[in-house]
Every structure is written in C-alpha cells, then in structure tokens.
C-alpha cells in the first residue's frame, strides 16, 4: 500500500532534472568558489547583466519610496512563459462579501542594519562561546557579504554566521552537540532559556509571546518582532537537539525606522492584486499552514513533550524495514528513474477570499534593503492565507513582469 502511494508521489513530480556534463565538474575545479555560480550564469544566458540594469528605468514623478527587488525567477532570466510552466494551477480570485470596502492609511517602516557585522559576530561569538576565525565571502561582487566565525574545516563545530544585508540575519549553530538520546528541557526551562537568549540578542518578549514546538527531532522556541502589536516575519528561534543541547539560534540585527503614513486600499480591492507576485510579502509564520504554524502560543508545546523534561518522547524502536523499501536507482544512470509524464495542463480554480487581517509584510528593495509595509492576510475558503500589499499606487515602484520598473498600478 505504501509502495503504491510512493509510486503516486514519484509520478507526480514534474521538476525537470537536467543532464549535467563534465563541464560542471570542470567549472568547479577551475574557478574559485565565490565565482563559480556567477560565471556559469553568465555563460549560460548573460542574465546577470540584464538584472542589474532593470532599475535604471524609474518613474520620475512622483518618486516612489521603495524600489521593489526583482523576483528570483526574473533575476535569473526566466521568461514569464517559463515561469508559467511551473504553475500547475491557475487561480481566479473572488472577493467574498465579508471583506471590507474601506480604504485607510498605515505606517511604512524601513529596517536599518544595526552596528557593524564584525561587532555583531564578536557579540554573538562571545554570547555562545564560539571560538575560531573570522572570514567573509561575497557572492555578488562585494555588494553583500556573509560573515563566518568558527572553524570552516569542521562544519559541525560551533560557528556564527551573519548575512549583512536586509535584516542582518544571523545564525549560531553547533551540531557537534547533537545526539538523538532524548533529554529535552522542560517547558518552563525552555521558555526561560529562550527568553534570555532572545533578550540578549535584541528581542525583548514575554514568555507568553514565545511558541514552543517539539518532537523526537528536538524542540524549537520561536518569537516574532512585533510592530503595532502584531507579529512580523522577523523571527528569532532557538533549536534544541533531542538530547537537550542548543544546536541553533537565529535572529536579526535591525532597528525599525518609521518612514511615514501612506494610503492603503481596501481588503476587497486588494483581492485584484492576488496572483501577481509583486504584491506579495512575508508575514509571520503563524499565518502559514504546516510546521511552525501548528504551534500554539504561550509556551504550549505539542503533545509529545512532557513538562518533566526528562521523559523521552519517542525512542526509536526496531521496526522492521519491510519489502516496501524503495530500491535505490543506479547512480550512474543519466535518465530520471520516474516515468515520463505529459506536459501539465494548468487546472483553473476559483478561490474565494472570505476574511482579512491587517498586518505588515516584509519586502525587499532593489538594493537589498528590507521594509515592513502595510498589507492584508486574506483567508480563502480552503483556510489558507495569502499575503498582499495594501499600499496605494505610487509608493512602491514595481519591476515590470518582463523588464524595467513600473509604478504600482493595476
């Protein structure tokens, strides 16, 4: 039965697997690491040049506040028809009667990087007791840098990394402490530890604002930076291994600067913007289904964690691995192991939006800067949320779907 279902999974995969040649290996051998991908991209299509030139065309009057960054697919030169190929379904969005027709106004915030990356690395290394050497690497000709502190030769050892752009996101990891022997901390101990770490790294929150989730894989504490009393997509996390050791912490290093109040469209009108990626933004993960969104607030933990903190959740038992094992494919075979499938025909689905919540969405500008802008989370009849920016036209300069930049007009 399980094999039959895995067969369905294999047949459903539409991702194309390219056939790589020795050229790929030779490119790796011949080039310094930082330039490998860039050179390949340029060699393939020259799209990097096109992407940087896009923002030369800007509306002059009125000047937009934010020049929105390109999407990933456009930055890498996919045409709109290429992008559509990966769309297996086309949605038609319909506004339900429950959506407000009232326009309004709200604040726009710019996120400014705090201090210097070197100082941040030093502070985090001291906080988590990391030893090693500082190195920095750029993948975009020096526009942005990844900072790494630790021992590069042993990736499982304690290290701190900082990406100095946008939200100044940072990460501490120490996989040398990982063990599957279950000894998770109690709920109270985990909350207290997370609150202290968050406070030390720039996020002051009460224990009530911290969410815990856990399983036999370990435990995660999570909290969001709030703006106007609402969670945002800027989240801090602490990750415990099953043995109760902290093996990962992440956060951001930004200050929030109010950049003025701007007009917003109604929730009902915002439905017209759905389906256009340029109007999307990142909201707090609690809006999204699965994984982290399954967690509940106030330190409530999933059912397989006990308050004692010492009882193992699930100790793996020696379940037999039966005949339903999927045989490995031959690694030397060039062809994908799945059966060829016909070109998909997009399915048309009418999606009705039934309610909305105001929030601030995280977006990125063309220079790598991060912003929090007013938006809605629109809930559909399936129970999912979609994000949409609610700022009136003209505040954000949107990249055109093919090239150039156009004002936010539909």
């Amino acid at each position: 039965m399980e094999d039959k279902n895995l067969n369905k999974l294999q047949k459903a995969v539409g991702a194309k697997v390219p056939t790589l040649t020795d050229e790929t290996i030779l490119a790796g051998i011949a080039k310094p690491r930082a330039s490998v991908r860039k050179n390949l991209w340029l060699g393939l299509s020259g799209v990097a040049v096109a992407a940087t030139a896009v923002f030369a065309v800007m509306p002059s009057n009125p000047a937009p506040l934010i020049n929105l960054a390109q999407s990933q697919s456009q930055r890498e030169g996919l045409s709109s028809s290429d992008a559509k190929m990966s769309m297996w379904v086309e949605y038609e969005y319909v506004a339900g009667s429950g959506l407000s027709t009232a326009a309004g106004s709200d604040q726009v915030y710019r996120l400014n990087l705090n201090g210097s990356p070197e100082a941040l690395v030093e502070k985090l290394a001291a906080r988590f007791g990391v030893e090693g050497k500082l190195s920095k690497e750029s993948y975009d000709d020096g526009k942005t840098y990844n900072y790494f502190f630790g021992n590069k030769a042993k990736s499982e050892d304690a290290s701190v990394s900082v990406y100095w752009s946008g939200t100044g996101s940072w990460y501490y990891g120490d996989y040398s402490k990982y063990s599957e022997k279950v000894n998770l901390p109690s709920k109270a101990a985990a909350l207290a530890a997370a609150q202290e770490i968050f406070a030390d790294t720039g996020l002051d929150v009460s224990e009530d604002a911290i969410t815990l989730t856990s399983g036999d894989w370990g435990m995660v504490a999570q909290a969001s930076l709030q703006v106007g009393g609402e969670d945002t997509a800027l989240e801090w996390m602490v990750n415990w291994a099953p043995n109760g050791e902290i093996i990962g912490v992440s956060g951001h290093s930004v200050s929030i600067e109010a950049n003025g109040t701007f007009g917003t469209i109604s929730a009902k009108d915002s439905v017209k913007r759905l389906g256009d990626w340029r109007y999307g933004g990142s909201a707090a993960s609690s809006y999204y289904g699965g994984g982290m969104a399954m967690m509940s607030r106030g330190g409530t933990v999933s059912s397989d964690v006990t308050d004692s903190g010492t009882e193992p959740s699930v100790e793996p038992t020696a379940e037999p691995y039966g005949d339903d094992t999927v045989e490995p494919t031959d690694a030397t075979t060039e062809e994908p192991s799945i059966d060829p499938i016909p070109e998909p025909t997009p399915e048309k689905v009418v999606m009705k939006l039934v309610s909305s919540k105001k929030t601030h969405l995280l977006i990125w500008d063309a220079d790598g800067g991060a912003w929090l802008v007013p938006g809605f989370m629109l809930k559909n009849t399936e129970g999912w949320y979609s994000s949409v920016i609610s700022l009136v036209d003209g505040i954000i300069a949107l990249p055109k779907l093919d090239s150039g930049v156009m004002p936010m007009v539909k």
Partner: protein
Amino acid sequence: MDSQEFTAHYRAFLPAISKFFAYRADSSDVEGLAAEVFSIAWQKRDKAPAGAELPWLYRIANNVLLNHRRKVKRNFTLPILETDLVSPSADDLVLETVTVRKAWEELKAADRSILALTALEGMSLEDVALTLKISKNAATIRTHRAKKNFSDILKVFEG
C-alpha cells in the same frame, strides 16, 4: 588525484547531485549549485571518504543549498532547522497531482526530507545514514515512519 582523475571519478555522481538540486532549487540554479559542490569537493578531495563519496557530496550539497536559500532567497524567516530548509516543497518538486501535492504539503519537513532522499532520489539507506550522520537503524525507522505518514495523509485527501 589530478583534475582528470577527479572528473573521471566524480562524473558518476552528476545525476544524483543534479537531481538533488533539481528537486530543491530553481532549474536555472541547478548547474551553478552543482558546480559549487564540485568546487568544494575538489578543494577538500584529500578528505573524501573512499567508497562513501556520494553521502559526502550530499552533505556538501546540503550546506551549499542552505547557503543558497539564506542568501539568494533571503528566506531568513523560515524555521532554522536544516530539515526545514533543505526538504523539498511541493513547489520545488512541481507536484502535479492535487491530492499528492496536498499530502506532501501536510507532511512534516523531516519526513519530506527523508522521503525525498529515498523514494525520489533513490539513495540507499546506508547512504542516507551516512548523509544524515545517523545510524542505519535510525534511517530505516525514519524512512518507514515517513512512508507511513505520507500514506496516511494521502489516504485522507483521497477520501
């Protein structure tokens, strides 16, 4: 090992690495990411475990993908667990069957991750164990559990 020997030895792993990235990154990124894996492998070729090169490459590929997602997609607000970052989403896989897609989306990241390696990429349990740095027994149990979870969820959506 010179560059010719390296290329001859490692070309056998090209399909596996290609598939790994094809299922987790934009198609236009696959070749660049793969080249980055081989760049690191070339630099660290003296440390390559003889006979276990594929799991070693997978571990490098995992790290390359993590960096790629953090940097290019600026996906810093996602959960930090490695399994969450490197397990392929329904969009990554371009799943074209509605029920399978929904079931995959409901599946925990850890289950998606191990099912992708075994059922979709065809890794042996020995290689999965080496890649994830867990025992073969643990790899067996996790795979068994992931398959069962996927089947259970799919059953719900198929009615």
